[in-house]
């Protein structure tokens, strides 16, 4: 599997396939079980679920930061074993190295053996894309949370990933910044059409960004340590960018909130 590292060309988006994936800890405590999911190249999929249900754990199986105890994860048909360089991660926290400038932090994301000049051009291009060109010389502590998270996103994009994995990327941001960042992510996806798998606990965010929303959770009647499964997969209608006030999404919102165990008091729910 060769990875293109050229600055000019963007790698094609890659498909992700999860086949019977399960993860248990200490032999018995199951966090995930029987996860089957096919994600098409270029698709945006949201993983939604209550806190601690294993959303992040599932993402870590795809990135190779963790290995499943059952089943296989494939990217573009090839099994993921160990840290997979075809995927890139952005975490809930920016996790920037505090002693490096924003630019030098983005450089960390470049694939190994990237040509110097090409790498510099790529970083420049990404800083522009996430609107940080003016702040490239600043240290992480000197920029706002939203700017740091943009830098983290640029770092993930630097290696031209076929799959972009985002673990609650906007979860720690204030509500307004979060909306701006969601639009930025869609702009980025238009320019760099990687497959995006992102974790969120925000129903609105899932419906605004994703092609499909995967609801994770423990099946009713099962104990919490029996492991989370895919409760439902919802295809979100309409093309992006979507109208945030779209009434047609209201019943989906109610359905998802219901799936999360939140009472919605929504009349459509009873239909």
């Amino acid at each position, binding site marked *: 599997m060769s990875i293109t590292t050229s600055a000019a060309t963007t790698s094609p988006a890659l498909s992700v396939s999860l086949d019977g994936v399960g993860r248990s800890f200490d032999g018995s405590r199951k966090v995930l079980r029987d996860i089957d999911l096919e994600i098409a190249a270029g698709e945006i999929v949201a993983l939604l679920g209550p806190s601690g249900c294993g959303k992040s754990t599932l993402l870590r199986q795809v990135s190779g930061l963790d290995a499943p105890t059952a089943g296989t994860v494939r990217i573009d048909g090839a099994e993921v074993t160990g840290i997979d360089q075809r995927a890139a991660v952005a975490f809930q926290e920016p*996790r920037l*190295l505090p*002693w490096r400038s924003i630019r030098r932090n983005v450089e960390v994301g470049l694939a190994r053996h990237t040509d110097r000049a090409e790498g510099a051009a790529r970083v420049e291009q990404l800083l522009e894309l996430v609107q940080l060109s003016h702040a490239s010389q600043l240290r992480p502590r000197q920029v706002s949370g939203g700017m740091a998270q943009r830098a983290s996103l640029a770092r993930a994009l630097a290696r031209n990933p076929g799959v972009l994995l985002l673990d609650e990327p906007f979860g720690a941001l204030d509500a307004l910044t979060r909306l701006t960042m969601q639009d930025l992510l869609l702009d980025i996806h238009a320019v760099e059409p990687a497959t995006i798998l992102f974790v969120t606990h925000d129903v609105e965010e899932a419906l605004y960004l994703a092609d499909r929303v995967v609801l994770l959770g423990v099946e009713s009647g099962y104990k919490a340590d029996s492991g989370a499964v895919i409760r439902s997969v919802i295809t979100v209608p309409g093309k992006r960018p979507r109208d945030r006030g779209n009434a047609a999404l209201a019943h989906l919102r109610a359905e998802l909130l219901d799936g999360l165990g939140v009472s919605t008091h929504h009349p459509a729910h009873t239909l």
Partner: protein
Amino acid sequence: MRSSVPGRRSTIRELPLGARIALGAALPLALLALWQFIIVLDVVPSYRLPSPTAVFLAGVDLQNRGLLGIHVLISTQRVLIGFAVGSIVGLVVASFVGLSRLGRYLVSPFLSGVRSIPSLAWVPLLGLYLGINEDSKVTLIAIGAFFPVYTVVSHALRNTDPQLLEAGRAFGYSGVRLLGLVQLPSAIPSVVSGLRLALAQSWLFLVAGELLGASMGLGFLLTDSNNNGRIDRLFLTILLLGLLGIITDAIVGVLERFLLKRWGA
């Protein structure tokens, strides 16, 4: 967690240099004034408390005989060599203990035992095995310098932010490359404070080291003056040790500011 105001550090304003020097000198000067005041009152006999003038003249006297510079230089040389050796070995062992589980379980219990041995307990052994010479004195100082560096740096390496480590791993860094990307840079503030403590400890161990049959050096001057009842020289030596400690600490302080500016958060 993260400031939304750029340049948060600058909100704590540093005092001007002049004010800092004045404040730093205030207590020593007050002590000197008190000392002179007691002398003027003439309530303590001079064989128990020499006057500041007598101490100064003792210094001038030693200088005229060409001895003062020799004592100061030989001691400084011993401290610097011992400090350099001890802290380099400290850094190497700390990396082993801080980065590998084998190192931690194999070496760290042993070293915490060795660390609790007081400096004076080493003196007869070093004299016996290395002889009464420069080696044994420098070795003792190196032992003194080793432990602060070892303790602080191994702890820092072991406690590198796991989130940053994971981020580094996620971007394909591992082994030595990960060490250079995350662990070493994040340990640099600890390295600097370890070095600073080690230097202070080196001066403390110097005096113990110069009990090893020295014929030169400030530790020798201290014991020699004590044996001959030269309390003026005793005071002089103590003052010189304090002064040298301040000077060398200030030099490390400059290094610290430079390193923290480059590598600090």
